[in-house]
């Protein structure tokens, strides 16, 4: 924005307000995920062997590749922000679209994973089958797995849509006009990535050596 909204004294005031607003929002998002993390921590403590067994059934190859994809998407989002700050419209668009594409590939691979898990009867409530003895704990693991990765995927979808919208708007507007939006959108994207950084080890890497 080159002209601030009328209740802000300067453009810098508006930029700082947008930045603080997004960080406060991310705080609420973290607290929104919090009960799932607590539920996971409690049930992992209560059903240690079941969680270990269940985690070994996750697709660690897709999980690891997806993590690398998401980390790379964060790189490109950071590059997009940098390009916006320098006023380079075309590179910003390219970086945003690469970010969105990587996010979409993540979602595609996730969909494949979900399809495999459905075939292997690992979806709780929908014909869930697991070795008896660990069945309750494994059901809880997969409940949290689908809950957390599903919620994450929803947030990622919103992020992809945002990146696409920004890239589209850049067709007719200079980079400076969208700077606040892209910077705050990037914060959101990095947050979604950060959540995945925690989800990956707790879902895919429990007792892998067993």
């Amino acid at each position, binding site marked *: 924005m080159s002209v601030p909204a009328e*209740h802000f004294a300067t453009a810098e005031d508006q930029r700082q307000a947008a930045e603080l607003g997004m960080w406060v929002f991310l705080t609420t998002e973290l607290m929104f995920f919090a009960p*799932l993390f607590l539920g996971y921590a409690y049930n992992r403590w209560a059903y240690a062997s079941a969680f270990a067994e269940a985690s070994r059934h996750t697709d660690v190859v897709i999980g690891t590749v997806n993590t690398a994809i998401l980390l790379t998407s964060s790189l490109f989002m950071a590059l997009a922000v940098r390009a916006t700050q320098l006023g380079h419209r075309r590179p910003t668009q390219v970086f945003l679209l690469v970010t969105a594409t990587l996010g979409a590939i993540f979602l595609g691979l996730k969909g494949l994973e979900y399809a495999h898990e459905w075939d292997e009867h690992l979806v709780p409530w929908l014909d869930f089958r697991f070795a008896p003895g660990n069945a309750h704990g494994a059901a*809880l693991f997969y409940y949290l797995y689908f809950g957390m990765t599903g919620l994450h995927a929803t947030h990622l979808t919103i992020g992809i849509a945002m990146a696409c919208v920004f890239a589209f708007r850049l067709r007719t507007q200079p980079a400076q006009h969208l700077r606040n939006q892209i910077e705050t959108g990037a914060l959101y994207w990095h947050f979604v990535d950060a959540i995945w950084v925690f989800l990956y080890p707790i879902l895919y890497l429990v007792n892998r050596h067993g």
Partner: protein
Amino acid sequence: MNAVPDSEIVPERVLHESSYLHEGFTLRSWLLTRDHKRIALLYLISITGFFFIGGAAATLIRLELMTPAGDVVDAETYNKLFTAHGVIMVWFFLIPSIPATLGNFLIPLMIGAREVAFPRLNLASWYIYTLGGIFVVATLIAGGVDTGWTFYTPFSTLFSNTNVVLAVIGVFVVGFSSILTGLNFIVTVHRLRTPGMTWFKLPLFVWAHYATSLILVLATPVLAMTLSLVVFERLTHIGIFDPALGGDPLLFQHLFWFYSHPAVYIMVLPAMGVASEIIPCFARKRVFGYRMMAYAIFGIAIIGFLVWGHHMFVSGQSLYASIAFSLLSFLVAIPSAIKVFNWTATLYKGSITLSAPMLYILGFVGLFTIGGLTGLFLAATALDVHLTDTYFVVAHFHYIMVGGTVMAYLGGLHFWWPKIVGRLYPETWARIAAVTIFIGFNLTFFPQYLLGAQGMPRRYHEYPARFQLLNEVSSSGAVILGIGYLLPLAYLPWAMLRGRRSSANPWGATGLEWQTPSPPPQENFATTLQVIRIPYDYHPATESAESQA
């Protein structure tokens, strides 16, 4: 004796007509407004509506409890009544009451700003609130929900045959309304203060709402996810809260109360903020210990996050956790007590006017103190084992939420009504209402302490005969309380249309909101203000000298 000097009453013909109320008269101009003042009024209408719906449920409850037998409604209907009362009063009245109406209206004015940081988000908050309200009304129409406002598992997830999902969706949605309001206030206070308005020149009303906003953004999302888990559990029976399937009902309780205890501070901190504005004005004296008051607000907010287990002393929670929560619960009383002492010290040797707002706030201070002290009884685990789930607890929280928050809300509404609508309310009627409410309130709820101590359980539609007399007193008091609430419902709108015109500062109060006309223009201030005076710059010595001259 008039609270407002005659010199402050402005003749009709002198006033200009360019306030925020005159910027468009269409429905569209109100429903698509970005003006924080108009959004505050939208909220005022909504929450008043819900207050009376919740009050209707309370009326039926007190009617049933007039006699020991369960003869007005059956047990399940009674469960639905207290659930409706709790859900509506907590989430659709108390939590938004002061922040969404007075907070929205006043915070930009008090800091010298034109608007809140995110005006469109502010409007979205109100629409989200309304959507949540629609779900709750739908729940009532569909036959209600009987789990209690606390939605305890596994009853809510496995056994209740009522509209749990519909009710929970309503609460989930309205939670986002309060999250966005809190977000808006935090950024507004950080980024939109006028030059010279440093943190320690802010009115305590703003400090209180800032701390409240911190609680709103940190606690409410936890509730949202917890309620989502209840819905999933109800639909799929996976077992995360079901002991038979290896789940833990206490996981739900920890998550629920992690939000719901700070929620009570969301309800009381804004009320304390209102008190800190009204007492100095009608004692004509600076707030005693301004900085300590600000620090105490934060003490309450932060320690308030660490005490939730005191709702779980008899739930099967570990003894050691209970000890920790009990100790922390005693600690949280300290900053609250500091505030009560400082209000009292502010009154001491002040030049006191018993205007209607002052009557409400004096009632607030006294009743909040009683409610807070009884909280200490409940914080002691050994006592709580006997008092929990009795009417003692019901009396305790009603003393704070009704004797406290609702009285402060009404006091604030009266204090700032001239600013909001540009006209004065009728002072005599307002004082009558304040006294009626105070008397009705005490008659309704004080007997409940006695009932609880004698062992009458809460959430029961029938009770042993020996409890009848106190229940009759309580129900009769509720009639008086109801009449008291109906009075402002009549004369405040009347004042809006027919009251005497008010000047910019009818009370001679400090604070930037009084430096602009009543009602304010849409942009709040004609010029950018520069703040140089300290907060609450009242001078009782010079004022009394002037009035004698």
